[in-house]
């Protein structure tokens, strides 16, 4: 049975519960591996949860199922997020998350499609996922395959020139079976995105590049689902959702803290954060 036939989660409250589980598993994974990216995994957790569990058609038992929707985590350092989701979706046994970043684990530091079925393409060098998503969307269109492509990028990531090459391509080829999401958490490694290399006005830039742009609160599950629905109805142009988020979302320990980009929680921080997430 695949999740297309199983049906998607339509209840927003239910999705919120799943997102909590995802956040806890991200933190569990990171705490016990002692290395990995905390802030950017947590900020995109609601978006990715909604994409996988309310929208995407996939079959975890048959990751190459032809009609599956495709997902690309362009900001590959958010690997713990995608692993937590895949574990929840049944791509691999839950215990596997304990092998994050260990020798010979399918859960590499950044997603590797050769080691983990269900990952469409390897990422980790920023700026490349949107081009690959375009290619997949074009290929699906050539085959009259109704599947859709989802791609999550970081706001810092869009400083990469290749993103704008791909932005032009998607509009030029009227790629409407693609929905991109920018995890607009305002931070990158060296500080606030605005200070390091300003990318604003994001909305106007993408609009000028020919995209349908939807701005939302990236932690408002209802808004996320609505935006994903809207994206499906837009024809003749690609859609990008600018999801305004908080880096490290879930616990005050990490929220808005640039230092938690690539730092993992201590055991104590983990326990405190889990409480906070469960109460939140």
């Amino acid at each position, binding site marked *: 049975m695949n999740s297309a036939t199983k049906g998607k989660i339509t209840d927003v409250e239910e999705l919120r519960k799943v997102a909590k589980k995802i956040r806890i598993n991200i933190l569990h994974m990171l705490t016990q591996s002692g290395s990995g990216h905390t802030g950017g995994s947590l900020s995109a957790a609601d978006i990715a949860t909604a994409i996988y569990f309310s929208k995407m058609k996939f079959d975890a038992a048959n990751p190459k199922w032809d009609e599956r929707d495709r997902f690309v985590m362009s900001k590959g350092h958010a690997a713990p997020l995608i692993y937590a989701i895949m574990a929840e979706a049944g791509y691999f046994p839950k215990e596997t998350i304990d092998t994050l970043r260990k020798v010979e684990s399918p859960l590499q530091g950044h997603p590797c499609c050769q080691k983990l079925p269900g990952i469409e393409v390897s990422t980790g060098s920023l700026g*490349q996922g949107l081009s690959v998503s*375009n*290619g*997949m969307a074009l*290929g699906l269109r*050539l*085959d009259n395959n109704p599947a859709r492509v989802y791609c999550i990028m970081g706001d810092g990531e869009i400083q990469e020139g290749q993103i704008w*090459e791909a932005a032009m391509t998607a509009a030029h080829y009227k790629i409407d079976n693609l929905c991109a999401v920018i995890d607009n958490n305002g931070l990158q490694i060296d500080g606030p995105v605005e200070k390091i290399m300003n990318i604003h006005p994001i909305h106007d830039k993408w609009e000028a590049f020919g995209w349908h742009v939807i701005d939302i609160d990236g932690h408002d599950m209802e808004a996320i689902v609505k935006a994903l629905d809207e994206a499906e109805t837009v024809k003749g142009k690609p859609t990008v959702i600018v999801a305004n988020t908080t880096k490290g979302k879930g616990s005050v320990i990490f929220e808005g803290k640039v230092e938690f980009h690539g730092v993992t929680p201590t055991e104590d921080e983990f326990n405190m954060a889990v409480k906070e997430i469960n109460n939140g």
Partner: protein
Amino acid sequence: MGERAEAVETMNATSEKKPKATREAYGEALLELGKKRDDIVVLDADLSGSTKTAKFAKEFPDRFFNLGIAEQDMIGTAAGLSLTGKVPFASTFAVFETGRAWDQIRLTVCYSNTNVKLVATHGGITVGEDGASHQALEDIAIMRALPNMNVIVPADAVETTSVIQSVADQIGPFYVRCGRAKVPHVMPDDYEFVLGKAYTFHMGRDVNIVATGIMVDAALKAAETLSDQGIDAGVINMASIKPLDEAVLLEAAQKSKLIVTAEEHSIIGGLGGAVCEFLAENCPVPVKRIGVNDSFGCSGSSSELLKLYGMTAEHMVETIKSSLSI
């Protein structure tokens, strides 16, 4: 056969034998492939007239994607297309294809092991007048260093046609380097390229020249001159640079006193590098590398440049004689 028919056939045969650029053969082979297989898609970055992918584009506009002057995006898009079962051929000049988009090739083609065929044209100094910015002399080295990548440099039109068919039939990343300038036919008409297999014209007892691309022709001419002077020089066309034909190299090294490599590329990291790496570990013999000696190219006609950089048959003869201390 009547006299007239025979005359026509001879004419066709000789016109077939006219020098032809490997990029020209690529464009034709691609068009033929496109007719046979609808999973073939082609990408270019605003150089389709020069890379000759325009022929395919004209016939199959729905399966052709011009990405504009955006090589990195072209590679990523090609990877994406391959992930939906298409067999993408992505082309631009060798400098831009490999240099500008190296990290993209590394991540989304090689590390992801996608079925992307990179066929670059304008490899080497015979790009000519455009000068150093457009003359790829490091592309073989930087493609060869990537795991999963196969690297092929055809010597003439016949070989190019066979190579293109072969890479379309095999799964995995390929880099094929074609040239801008017209080159003479060196391979037999019935030749078929096999990955990892070199073509031995002759195995020499004194020296063996292991050449690739346009240097195969120069090697054949050099071998003829040397033979006239009593030196038994062999010529091996190593179109398959990765994987190398190790068996033939071993034989050549065991049977002769000197191995000479010849390529339209820097002597660092390309065919010469690959041959030295293999022989140093497996059958250490004297090796002389002919190619561009750690420098950039410059403007000029291709024949002038080949002379300037010491890549002619005459130069090869001199190098071999002095290396053999004759």
